[in-house]
C-alpha cells in the first residue's frame, strides 16, 4: 500500500512539472495555430537562465522574478523576428522554422554555457527533506515546486476565465476573423500570447533546474512529453493540459514499476487510447 501511495504522489508531482511546460505550448498552438517545436528550447533557456541568475543573485526565487520578464521580452522578440511571418503559412513551414530554431538555440547554448552538466543550488530554507508514507524522503523543494505549479495553474485559469485579456484569448481561439472585426489588434494579442508561452516554459525551466540539473538537450524530452500532453488534453485547453499532465505523470510512475518492459510505451499508449475515444482530446473540441 505504501508503494502505491508513494507512486501516486510521485506521479502527481511529476505531472505538475510537465504541466508547467505544456501549458505554454497548448496556448500557442490552440490560439495562434502555430506548431512551435522550439518550445523545449525555451524550457532549456529557463534552466540556463536559472543557472546564471542564481549564481548572480544567490536565490532561485529571485532568479524566477528576474527570469520571467527576461523570457517574456525574449519571446516577444522571437515572435516579432520570426513567428509572425508564419501565421498565414502552412504547418510544414512552421515546423521547419521552429525546428531550425532548436538547432540554433542548441548551438548558442553550447557556445555560451558549454557542454558540462551543471547544478543549481536549492535555497537553504527549502533544502531539507521529509518522509512521506514511510518509504522514502522527498526534498522540501520538490514539494514547494508542486505547490507553485498548482498556484500557477489556478492563476492561469483565473486569467483565462475571468479577465478581459482572457476573454480576448478565448475569442481569438474560437474565431480569429470575428475578433479582428470587433477591433481587437490580434497582432499584439498574438505577440502577448507567444511571449506568455515562452515565459511559462522558461519559468518551468527555472524552477525545475535545481531538481533536474542543467545539461545540453534538457528541453528535447520536455518538448515530446508536452506535445503528448497537449494531444491528450485537447489543443488550446489549459484545463486539458492540467489533467493530461497529471495523467501522464501517473501513467509514467506506475508504468515504470508495474510494466517495466513497456515503460517507454505506456505514455504513448495512453495518448493513442485518448485519440481513439476522443479525437479532439479530453477537453478539446472534436
Amino acid at each position: 500500500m505504501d508503494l502505491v501511495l508513494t507512486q501516486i504522489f510521485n506521479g502527481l508531482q511529476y505531472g505538475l512539472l510537465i504541466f508547467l511546460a505544456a501549458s505554454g505550448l497548448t496556448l500557442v498552438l490552440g490560439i495562434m495555430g502555430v506548431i512551435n517545436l522550439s518550445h523545449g528550447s525555451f524550457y532549456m533557456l529557463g534552466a540556463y537562465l536559472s543557472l546564471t541568475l542564481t549564481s548572480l543573485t544567490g536565490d532561485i526565487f529571485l532568479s524566477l522574478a528576474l527570469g520571467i520578464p527576461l523570457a517574456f521580452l525574449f519571446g516577444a522578440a522571437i515572435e516579432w523576428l520570426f513567428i509572425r511571418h508564419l501565421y498565414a503559412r502552412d504547418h510544414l513551414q512552421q515546423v521547419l522554422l521552429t525546428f531550425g530554431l532548436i538547432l540554433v538555440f542548441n548551438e548558442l547554448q553550447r557556445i555560451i554555457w558549454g557542454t558540462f552538466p551543471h547544478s543549481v543550488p536549492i535555497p537553504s530554507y527549502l533544502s531539507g527533506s521529509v518522509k512521506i508514507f514511510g518509504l522514502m524522503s522527498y526534498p522540501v523543494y520538490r514539494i514547494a515546486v508542486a505547490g507553485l505549479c498548482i498556484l500557477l495553474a489556478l492563476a492561469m485559469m483565473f486569467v483565462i476565465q475571468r479577465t478581459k485579456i482572457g476573454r480576448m484569448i478565448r475569442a481569438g481561439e474560437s474565431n480569429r476573423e470575428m475578433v479582428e472585426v470587433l477591433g481587437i489588434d490580434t497582432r499584439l494579442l498574438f505577440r502577448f500570447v507567444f511571449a506568455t508561452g515562452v515565459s511559462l516554459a522558461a519559468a518551468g525551466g527555472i524552477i525545475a533546474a535545481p531538481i533536474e540539473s542543467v545539461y545540453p538537450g534538457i528541453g528535447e524530452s520536455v518538448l515530446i512529453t508536452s506535445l503528448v500532453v497537449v494531444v491528450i488534453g485537447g489543443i488550446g485547453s489549459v484545463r486539458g493540459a492540467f489533467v493530461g499532465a497529471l495523467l501522464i505523470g501517473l501513467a509514467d510512475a506506475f508504468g515504470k514499476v508495474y510494466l517495466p518492459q513497456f515503460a517507454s510505451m505506456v505514455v504513448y499508449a495512453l495518448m493513442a487510447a485518448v485519440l481513439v475515444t476522443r479525437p479532439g482530446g479530453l477537453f478539446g473540441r472534436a
Partner: protein
Amino acid sequence: MKSRSELSRRRVLALTGAGAAAAAFPFVRPSFAQGGPLKVGLLLPYTGTYAQLGEAITRAMELYVKQKGGALAGRQIAFVKLDDESAPPKGAENTTKLIEGEKVDVLIGTVHSGVAMAMAKIAREAGLPTINPNAGADVLTRGLCAKNIFRTSFANGQVGLATGKAAAEAGIKTAVSFTWDYAAGKEMIAGFAEAFTAGGGKVLKEITVPFPNVEFQSALAEIANLQPEITHSFFSGGGAVKYIKDYAAAKLGIPLWGPGFLTDGVEAAVGAAGDGVKTVLHYADDVDNPENKAFRKDFTDAYKVAPDVFAVQGWDTMQLLEAGLKAVGGDVSKRDAMFAAMGTASFKSPRGPFDISAAHNPVQNFYLRELKGGKNVLIKTVATKFSDPGTGCKLSS
C-alpha cells in the same frame, strides 16, 4: 590550348615544389620504403556531448608524441583529425574518408560505441592497425574482435564484472541494479550480476528506465520497497547528476555503487549529494605509481586542466602504437609482425600495469573509489590484472 597551359602550370608547380622540398631537406633520406611521416587518423568527437572526451584523448596523445620529440620508433607522427560527431550513421562514411581519402597508416577511434561498431566493420576489411581509445561495447573485443583492432580502454562488461566482484568481496549479499535501457548500461549490469552472483550475492531486481529519461522517483520508491543492501547504478552526464542528487534526497539509507563513469566528470556538479558514492574503474586520480605522478604533472602543466580517465586511455593508445612500431622499425606495411607485437604488448601505464588480452582488450587493475568532497578517493585495488573473458572471440595469442 587551355588544357595545355593548365598542364604546364601544374608541371611548373610540381617541379618548384619538389625543388623547394629538396632544398629544405638536402641530406635527409627516408629510411624505409614509404617515407614521410606516419599518418595517424583520429576519428573522434570534437563537437557535441562527447567533445570533452575526444579532446582529452587527443591532448594526451599529442603530449605523448611531443615528449618523444614528435616521433615514435624513429617515425615522425602526423595526426589527421576528423570529427565523428558521435553520429553512428556517419561512422562508415567518415572511416572511409580517413582510410581511402586521407590514406592514413593507422586509425584511432572512437568514443561512441555505435560509431565504433561502424568503424570496426570497415577497419576489419581494410586491415590497417586500429586502436579504440574508449568505446566500451562488449562485442568489439568479444564476437566482433579482429586481429588488427585493439582497445586501450575497457569493455563495459569488464567494468561490470569488476564492480560485482568488489561488491561481493565487501560482504554484500543483495543488490538492485538500476540503469538506462540501452547497451552500455545493460552490459555493465549483466557483468555486475555475473560476478556478484558468482561471489555469493543476489541481484533482487534489475530496473531500467528508457534512455535518456531522468525521472527517477518511481524507481527510487521501488528500491526503497525492495530494501537491498546496495543499489548498483549506471547513468552519465546530466542524468548522473540528477540521479545522484535524487538518490541522496530520497534518504533511502542504502549505499549507492556503480561503475566509475557514474561519477567521473560530474564530481563538482553533484556536490555534497555525491559523498559516499562508491565506484569501480580502471583508473583513479590518486593511483600511486611514478608513471601516474609524472603523467598528471605533465598534462596539467601543458593544458592547465587535470587529466581524467579518458586522457589516460589516449596516453596508452600512443604507448601501444609505439610498441607496435618499435617491433617493425616504423614500417607499418609489416602488419603481421606489428600486430603480434601489439597483441603481446606490456607496459607501465598511469593506471598501473597494462597488458593486452588475446581478444585485444586491456588486462588491467580495477580500483574501488569513494566520492568525497568532490574527489574520487582511491580506497583499494579490487582486481589485479583483471581480464574481460572475451567470449566469442576466435583470436588466440
